[in-house]
């Protein structure tokens, strides 16, 4: 119950913050979608960092380290520190300048003008929305699972012991579940909520809270909430690290406990012998996805000035280190003989951090850490919901109305209405519990990465043509679909593209590359070849987007 009270208190605070931000709302669609370009360096840093870090930053990093060892920091975190800031620097600042000058609110609006194509949105909008939806599902499903797990009891002798709620508190369809190993058996409490808040109710509560503060506060509320939530999950991550290190090491001083805990890490978890170097290298392409995230594009446009980007560009790699280094160490410690991880927890690495907290830190820190995990999840969900509302209004409704544009008030109404619809759709899809949604996450990121050449060329290559852009999107989508089906539709989580090489070069006789490398190669080749073969853009477009290159 302690954990539930702490989580409830945290969600209440978040609501108050959203309501507070709504009091500053200026009543225009410009303010609702872009906070009237008023976000300064600190809020921009926190909101961008909170948006790019999902639940994966806390529980996923610990889980991956438990599974693969400390090498995951280099594969997933330090590469992001380089590539994310590169994207903010190369793309974000230019996008902000063009967006402010020409009044862009979405990626599609920018690409329509840059490519002299009113129909690019017909291709790009469904691709972008299709890639965001599974990303949203991950957050909604993860939040329900986390709240359920930390409030549930444990199983002892075939019974649930110590749960927050007794059996029968909720209707049977919410608290009973099927045994995955015997699906024909009748559903039972043992395989359902196990005395915790039912997942469906927990996800509904999270969707409701995010909906309320996005609905009321718009982008300003989202930026404030993201800042608060980012501070929460960063501070709680460090506190959790100190408590777990001390308890696990079991020495008088913190330093000695750290050394004892690390000395017990098995050799294979300290090295990367099981990670092929070429897979490590090509994983660097995955963080390029931030260049094409539509919700991040919208955050870039909220900046007050170009200078506002300087702090995010510099501090982002440091923030990644602050969150990831402690979590990766905790995951490696969990593989040592200092603690026994039960087989059901070991089978689901994302459960390792909650298990350690519950076992070593007690219910109060457990409650706060859960609040931190929810903070990381919600700080991504809010931006994505707001972004989809903006895209629907600006890229679908307004173009359909042609010269009869919606008034500002109606535009606000449509955006808010679509946000409610998309929250309801996402929640409904989450109830179907698509099993492969977490593996789908990496595929979504890879899809966004494969479109990176499009935004890079649009900003830096005057020779990019409309046909080249269409070819890029089609090549990205086509290669994505082909490789996705080859991976048994995400059924094979370790799927790689294998390039045969002589055994003198690689003893395995093949280079194992991440699929994203092949997708980027295909989309880059398509955009370059087709652009060079087709008619260059007109002088007016060149003058508008590349004033220094115009004749």
């Amino acid at each position, binding site marked *: 119950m302690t954990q539930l009270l702490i989580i409830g208190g945290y969600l209440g605070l978040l609501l108050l913050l959203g309501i507070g931000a709504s009091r500053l709302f200026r009543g225009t669609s410009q303010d609702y979608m872009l906070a009237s370009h008023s976000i300064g360096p600190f809020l921009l840093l926190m909101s961008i960092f909170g948006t790019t870090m999902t639940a994966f930053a806390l529980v996923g990093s610990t889980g991956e380290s438990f599974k693969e060892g*400390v090498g995951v920091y280099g594969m997933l975190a330090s590469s992001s520190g380089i590539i994310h800031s590169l994207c903010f620097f*190369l793309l974000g600042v230019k996008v902000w300048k063009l967006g402010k*000058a*020409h009044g862009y609110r979405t990626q599609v609006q920018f690409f329509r003008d840059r490519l002299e194509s009113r129909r690019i949105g017909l291709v790009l909008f469904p691709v972008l929305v299709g890639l965001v939806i599974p990303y949203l599902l991950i957050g909604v499903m993860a939040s329900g699972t986390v709240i359920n797990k930390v409030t549930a009891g444990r199983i002892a002798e075939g019974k649930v012991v110590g749960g927050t709620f007794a059996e029968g508190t909720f209707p049977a369809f919410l608290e009973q579940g099927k045994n995955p190993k015997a699906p024909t058996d009748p559903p039972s409490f043992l395989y359902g909520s196990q005395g915790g808040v039912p997942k469906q109710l927990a996800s509904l509560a999270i969707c409701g809270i995010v909906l309320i503060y996005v609905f009321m506060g718009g982008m300003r509320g989202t930026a404030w909430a993201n800042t608060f939530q980012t501070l929460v999950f960063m501070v709680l991550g460090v506190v959790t690290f100190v408590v777990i290190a001390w308890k696990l090491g079991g020495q008088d001083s913190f330093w000695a406990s750290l050394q004892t805990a690390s000395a017990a*890490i098995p050799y294979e978890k300290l090295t990367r012998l099981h990670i092929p170097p070429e897979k490590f290298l090509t994983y660097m392409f995955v963080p390029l996805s931030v260049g094409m995230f539509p919700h991040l594009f919208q955050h870039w446009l909220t900046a007050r000035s*170009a200078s506002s980007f300087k702090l995010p560009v*510099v501090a982002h790699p440091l923030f990644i280190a602050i969150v990831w280094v402690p979590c990766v160490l905790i995951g490696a410690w969990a593989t040592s003989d200092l603690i026994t991880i039960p087989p059901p927890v070991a089978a689901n690495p994302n459960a390792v951090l909650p298990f350690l907290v519950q076992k070593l830190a007690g219910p109060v820190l457990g409650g706060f850490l859960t609040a931190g995990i929810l903070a990381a999840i919600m700080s991504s969900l809010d931006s994505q919901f707001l972004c989809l509302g903006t895209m629907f209004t600006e890229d679908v409704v307004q173009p359909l109305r042609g010269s009869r544009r919606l008034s500002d008030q109606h535009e606000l109404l449509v955006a808010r209405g679509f946000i409610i619809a998309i929250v309801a759709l996402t929640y409904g899809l989450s109830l179907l519990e698509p099993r492969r949604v977490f593996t789908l996450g990496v595929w979504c990121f890879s899809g966004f990465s494969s479109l990176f050449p499009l935004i890079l060329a649009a900003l830096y290559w005057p020779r990019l043509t409309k046909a080249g852009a269409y070819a890029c999107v089609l090549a990205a989508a086509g290669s994505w679909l082909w490789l996705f089906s080859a991976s048994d539709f995400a059924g094979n989580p370790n799927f790689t593209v294998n390039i045969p090489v002589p055994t003198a070069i690689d003893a395995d006789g093949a280079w194992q590359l991440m699929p994203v490398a092949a997708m980027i190669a295909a989309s880059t080749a398509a955009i370059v070849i087709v652009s060079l073969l087709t008619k260059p853009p007109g002088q007016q477009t060149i003058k508008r987007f590349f004033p220094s290159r115009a004749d």
Partner: protein
Amino acid sequence: MKPAHVVWALVALLIVAHQDIWFWDDARLIFGFLPITLAYHAGISLAAAGTWYLATLFCWPVDDAAPSPMTEDRS
């Protein structure tokens, strides 16, 4: 060499240094608790922050003066 070129050379160096095959099978602990591969890549994160700081000083892509607001605003 212009400062901007030095900054871009440093970014390229970061990407190369990130592929640290020389530590692939090294299990040493720095200060008795930090695995060397983790310490090295935490160092890469710090170096990235430093490199991007230099980038903001020497090759910032846009001048600080705000563009004329909403010259072709869609709202």
